């Protein structure tokens, strides 16, 4: 029992929660990216992947519920920590120079919240497929390929063909990468998995992986806006 109280009530415990949930979400972001990058392999690959996920409810639902709980915990801890941090300095400095504190580190709550709103939109857009939000005037639910599978490829190409949607996506991914550049580094720190001997390696890893995530995710809407997939779709 004491483990739970220590985790949920202490400052260090809450950072553990942040780190562990953050790590899980980071894992999801990577997995999701690898899945989505299959779009570049053509409609067959991505549609098969989509079908595989859709047809295994016993995998997807526990994963969805798990992710929701993790997100909830991550956000709860974030809000709690931020509130405590605000309360810890009731009178602000007239002049405050944060010196080395990176932009990412100082804007975690903001970047996190914007990413969260993006996720809501993203779920409505591609998962729940509410037609009103895709701005294309078409219905994503009814897209099927030759084999009768949901045509994920077409949905993505159509979805990202709207510049405004892609722009929002790119902004959100930028913020997510910024968030992760600090988050991944802090995660190791908060869990105590950092030592001087490999601190630099961790730093480089966090930066590298954030860039990878940024480039990976952003490559999809950019490619689509530049014309990728139009041909395949028109067939």
């Amino acid at each position, binding site marked *: 029992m*004491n*483990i739970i109280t*220590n*985790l949920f*009530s*202490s*400052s*260090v*415990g*809450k*950072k*553990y929660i942040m780190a562990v949930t953050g790590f899980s979400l980071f894992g999801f972001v990577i997995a999701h990216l690898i899945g989505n990058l299959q779009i570049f392999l053509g409609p067959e690959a991505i549609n098969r992947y989509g079908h595989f996920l859709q047809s295994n409810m016993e995998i997807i639902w526990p994963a969805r519920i798990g992710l929701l709980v993790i997100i909830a915990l991550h956000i709860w801890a974030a809000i709690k*920590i931020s509130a*405590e*941090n605000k*309360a*810890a*300095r*009731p*009178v*602000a*400095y*007239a*002049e*405050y*120079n*944060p*010196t*080395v*504190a*990176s932009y990412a*580190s*100082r804007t*975690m709550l903001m970047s996190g919240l914007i990413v969260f709103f993006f996720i809501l939109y993203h779920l409505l857009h591609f998962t729940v497929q509410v037609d009103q939000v895709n701005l294309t005037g078409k219905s994503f639910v009814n897209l099927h390929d030759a084999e009768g599978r949901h045509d994920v490829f077409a949905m993505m190409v159509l979805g990202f063909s709207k510049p405004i949607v892609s722009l929002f996506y790119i902004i959100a991914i930028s913020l997510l990468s910024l968030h992760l550049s*600090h988050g991944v*580094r*802090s995660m*190791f*720190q*908060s*869990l*105590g*998995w*950092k*030592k*001087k001997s490999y*601190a630099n390696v961790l730093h480089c890893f966090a930066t590298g992986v954030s860039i990878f995530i940024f480039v990976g995710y952003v490559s999809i809407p950019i490619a689509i806006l530049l014309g990728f997939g139009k041909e395949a779709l028109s067939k």
Partner: protein
Amino acid sequence: MNLTLKVWRQKNPNDAGGIVTYDANDIIPDMSFLEMLDVVNEDLISRGEEPIAFDSDCREGICGTCSMVIDGIAHGGQRGTTVCQLHMRHFNDGDTITIEPWRAKAFPVIKDLVTDRSAFDRIIESGGFVSVNTGGTPDGNTLPIPKVDADEAMDAAACIGCGACVAACKNASAMLFVSAKVSHLALLPQGKPEAERRVLKMVKAMDEAGFGNCTVTGSCEAVCPKEISLDFIAKLNREFGKAILKNRAERQVAD
């Protein structure tokens, strides 16, 4: 050289306080920052005004008493330096300098630039020690300690408890201070027997005092006059994790 100072003045803890502007004239580059304030204060007293209250004692960078935020940076931004060791040669004629007290809920302002940092003492009282009584200790050389461990412990123990880490942190977190003491004692064999109990109690005391959380911005390390490393916070987190995973520690804290 001549300077313009914008100084936080606050008569007592209940006063709202505000920034007041003063001129500091004929300042010599060899003066320390506090000697510059001494000059301003002598002038204020002679004019029948109240001098600016600020904390200082040893004025050689070790007691940790002096504490002010200069142009938004705790201790003034000279790396590894307390205000008392900051010299005016780092400023230019005509500069405007803003001087404020440490700002944190756990460090309430007593007067002007003087704050109450007793929260740090409460944290040490909660467990920042090795429980040995005077006398009856074994010979100092009975317990060989690897030089690297002793050196690392000393790196952490160098903390002067000034509170600049709290002042600089955007969250007013005391993690660097607490981690320095936890690490110092956890790195040495003498401190190991009660390491778990210590870290849990000190974190609890830290939280109760109203400090914020560490969000790893690194501001604390940057202003620390003893350049205590952020890695010690990782060490604290590791110690905390070990402690909560061991049921044993819970029994120890309960007593």
